[in-house]
């Protein structure tokens, strides 16, 4: 992103978009699309699908802008939810061999060094999350990252990571409990 837009500014742009203000919607797109497109590329691993997901998501965002409730989620969280849901939908209907390649199976999340990820992360709350992800057992955080970035259900994770289903469930549960404890401890 060329410039960091504050969440107040994003809220204003989204509220105006909800009133039918096309210029505000264009500005909202300019301010957020690069970050969200990055997420689409990461999840779908294919440019054409990522473009489709982003496009569909922003059409949804325009139509639902007036339903946004600030007390439930920050603007970026709300938009990310819509974009990620679109990506998950596309993953479900796209033949599996077309997406995740084996050599890209999120080993960066299993590695001991999360430095490369940290250099990308801009917001302080995201850095806090990354910090806490770093305190988890590598396999736990890899399972969480694969759930997030690939929308894998537990059964699919068990298959991908060649582990019994019970083990996967334990990893995820323990991983998420530690993550929450760490994030709340740091607040």
């Amino acid at each position, binding site marked *: *992103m060329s410039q960091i837009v504050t969440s107040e500014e994003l809220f204003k742009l989204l509220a105006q978009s909800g009133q*039918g203000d*096309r210029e505000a919607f*264009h500005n909202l*797109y300019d301010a957020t*699309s*690069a*970050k*969200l*497109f*990055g*997420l689409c*590329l*990461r999840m779908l691993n294919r440019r054409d699908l*990522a*473009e489709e997901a*982003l*496009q569909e998501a*922003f*059409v949804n965002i*325009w*139509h639902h802008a007036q339903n946004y409730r600030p007390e*439930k*989620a*920050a603007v*970026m*969280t709300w938009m*990310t*939810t819509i*974009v*990620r*849901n679109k990506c*998950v939908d596309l993953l479900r209907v796209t033949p599996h061999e077309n997406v995740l390649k084996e050599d890209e199976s999120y080993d960066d999340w299993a590695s001991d060094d999360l430095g490369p*990820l*940290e250099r*990308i*992360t*801009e*917001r302080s*709350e*995201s850095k806090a*999350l*990354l910090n806490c992800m770093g305190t988890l057992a590598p396999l736990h955080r890899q399972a969480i*990252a694969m*759930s*997030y*970035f690939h*929308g*894998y*259900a*537990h059964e699919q994770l068990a298959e991908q990571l060649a582990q019994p289903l019970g083990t996967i469930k334990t990893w995820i*549960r323990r991983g*998420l*409990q530690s*993550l*929450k404890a760490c*994030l709340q401890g740091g607040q």
Partner: protein
Amino acid sequence: MRYDNPELADMLAVEYVLGTLKKSTRNRYEQLLQQRPDWQQAQNWWQAHIHLLADTIPAKKPPNKVWQNIEQRLFSKPYPNNSWWRNAWLRNTAFLSTALAASFATFLVLQSPKEAVTYEPSAVAMLANEKAQSGWHLSLTKNTAGEVSIRADSLASLESKPNNSFELWILPSDKGKPISLGLLPQQGKKLVKVPTQLVALLNTSGLAVSLEPVGGSPTGQPTGAVLYQGKLVQI
């Protein structure tokens, strides 16, 4: 009670946010969520935090065509999506011929001697719904100053919608955006002025009526269902 266990609330919430719950579990969760503020709180918390993972991904500017497609989808084609208007149009052409026949019949009835003096329509239309029930009879008139209006007479078969307004639209034949002509009466008659620059368009375009919030569409484009359609026919 099992549902009071905060750990359970947490695990369901985060899996709901991740989208990994089975359908049956998800449905049950959504039901219970309505009655449990603690669950809603857990969900908001996880939603706010888990999506920070997206911030660890490098930003990448999308190609310009993505925005162009979005703009085209939203603003230069009918609202709310690009197939909606066309589908409504195709679906309804079946009853158009019936409606046209009815239109001429009604026109003849309206031509009582008294009416003929007050206005002389140059074209008429019958707006009918999918069940081929007529809502309005329209007639195109011109006053002595040359101003064109559509006179709309609501018909007994019109199903009134007291909590909404009916809005009349021109549907350009080139599939361009619908153009509002104004609201139609729920009962009785109304004269709808046609701006001069739209008069020529009326000859080639269809007409449609959408259901809108009271006072008309807030967006300038149809937002509700298309209930009635028709086309002006020269007489």
